[in-house]
């Protein structure tokens, strides 16, 4: 296996892909958003229960490649308990990592996605769940689509 691919498919990503966290519909959700990538057919629904301005619970459901599924799974573990501004800040950090490959040590699980930057076509896969989550936080009904915003 070439080094490039093991950079892209790090252990953390394979683990989240095989055993996704917080997967399935959240019956108590009060915010839902759908994300899709029409060019490849990947889909991701994000369910949030927002209480007192914080994400009390979160789940995702959908289908897609290992990168998109692992990213959404990891995201759910990072966003629980966060406020909307904190969630946006986390996404900015994640986005920086997947687009530049530069990962500061302290956010180690995010660092597993640093290899994505070498595969530009896959950046949209890594950010699909995040866009849906941020839309859900804003309470926007419109589905997140990778075709109407930047990566």
């Amino acid at each position, binding site marked *: *296996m*070439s080094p*490039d*691919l093991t950079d*892209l*498919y790090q252990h953390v990503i*394979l683990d989240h892909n*095989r055993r996704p966290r917080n997967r399935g519909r959240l019956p108590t959700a009060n915010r839902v958003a759908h994300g899709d990538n029409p*060019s*490849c*057919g*990947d*889909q991701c629904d994000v369910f949030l229960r927002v209480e007192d301005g914080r994400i009390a619970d979160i789940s995702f459901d959908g*289908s*897609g*490649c*290992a*990168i998109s*599924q692992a990213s959404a799974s990891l995201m759910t573990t990072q966003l629980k308990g966060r406020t909307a501004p904190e969630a946006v800040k986390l996404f900015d950090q994640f986005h920086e990592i997947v687009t530049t490959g530069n990962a500061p040590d302290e956010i180690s699980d995010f660092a597993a996605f640093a290899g994505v930057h070498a*595969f530009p076509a*896959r950046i949209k*896969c890594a950010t699909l769940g995040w866009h849906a989550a941020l839309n859900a936080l804003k309470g926007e009904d419109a589905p997140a689509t990778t075709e109407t915003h930047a990566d």
Partner: protein
Amino acid sequence: MPTESAPDWDKIRADFPALAQEVNGRPLIYLDNAATTQKPRSVIDALSRFYEHDNANVHRGLHALSTRATDAYEGARARVARFIHAAHPEEIVFTRGTTESINLVAASWGAANLHPGDVILLTEMEHHSNLVPWQMIAKRTGATLRFVPITGNEGLLDLSQLDRLLTPEVKIFAFTHVSNTLGTINPVADLCARARKAGALTVIDAAQSVGHMPIDVGAIGCDFLAFSGHKMAGVTGIGVLYGRRELLDAMPPYQGGGGMINHVEFFESRWKPSPERFEAGTPNFADAYALGVACDYLDSVGRPAIEKHDEALARRAYDALSRLPGIRIIGPSTERTGLVSFALNDVHAHDVVTFADQDGIALRGGHHCNQPLMRKLGLTSTARASFYLYNTDAEVDALVASLRRTIKFFAG
């Protein structure tokens, strides 16, 4: 004319300059031919030669270069007519590709002939290009859509339903010759005969067939046939709508502009007959000329030989892939064209494609512009290997070995 002895496939492969390169440090194995094929040197050179020597606008010029360009363009039209055995060159309308050809029929013929209560018959295996234009014209005219179902995983049309579906309300029946996702080859002559008996016109999407097998529109008995140049060793941006002359001459224009009129007043105009009626504006004459050269190239090899070659590669791939663990191959097990679509239980198609790419192998992964069909098959995406005249047994074997490594990697 098809050569009598077997083609020299190694020599043919050397005609395609793009194949002689490395991708990710490995020799390129190009298996995305259903999306677009590579181009032989003769086609690439024809395009350069045209721009270097003969380039001028066609039809209205009286100078030498315009005459040469017009001869090249109209020569290509006659060449394409021979390629599909059309009765007259005037039955060949140049378009941007299959999609525009189908949109032309839907918008022009549909607007003039479809009324509320009329039915457009399609099949469940149509590419979005032979579905969405019909959805649009149905909305505009009040006609409705109806679909010939497919049977299970084999992906064949359920022909036992056809006579029940071909009611007098069906005005037009549009279907693909070869499915880009399933690899199914539909019995087009039989479908056309049954449609004709029921009083419906027929439109064939031949994007996946015309460069891979002999096509005779007279023998098939279709009313319209659409295809793209770039999927048959030609260049991008040029395609063809074949239509029976009396149908084309009775249809209103698709777009208005120069080149398609006989007489223009401030308030109205009179149209030229087909094909100029449907070619408003400066046509894509350079790419049309190169398409004619692609026809020459394919006929010099012989489409019966290409068809056999592609199908043998697909058979080899189908048999070897069937033995991989956790694989589901969709489409018919026999009577299939030169492509194989598959899904792995534990590896998403996009990951399959990324891993193959690292081995220099170009595959396609996704819904293949076939979202309703994918849903019917219970899939969101498949990976697809599609073959053409320059592919080899060794490339099929390399694909299988690469997939084996991918499966092992994800199994952990």
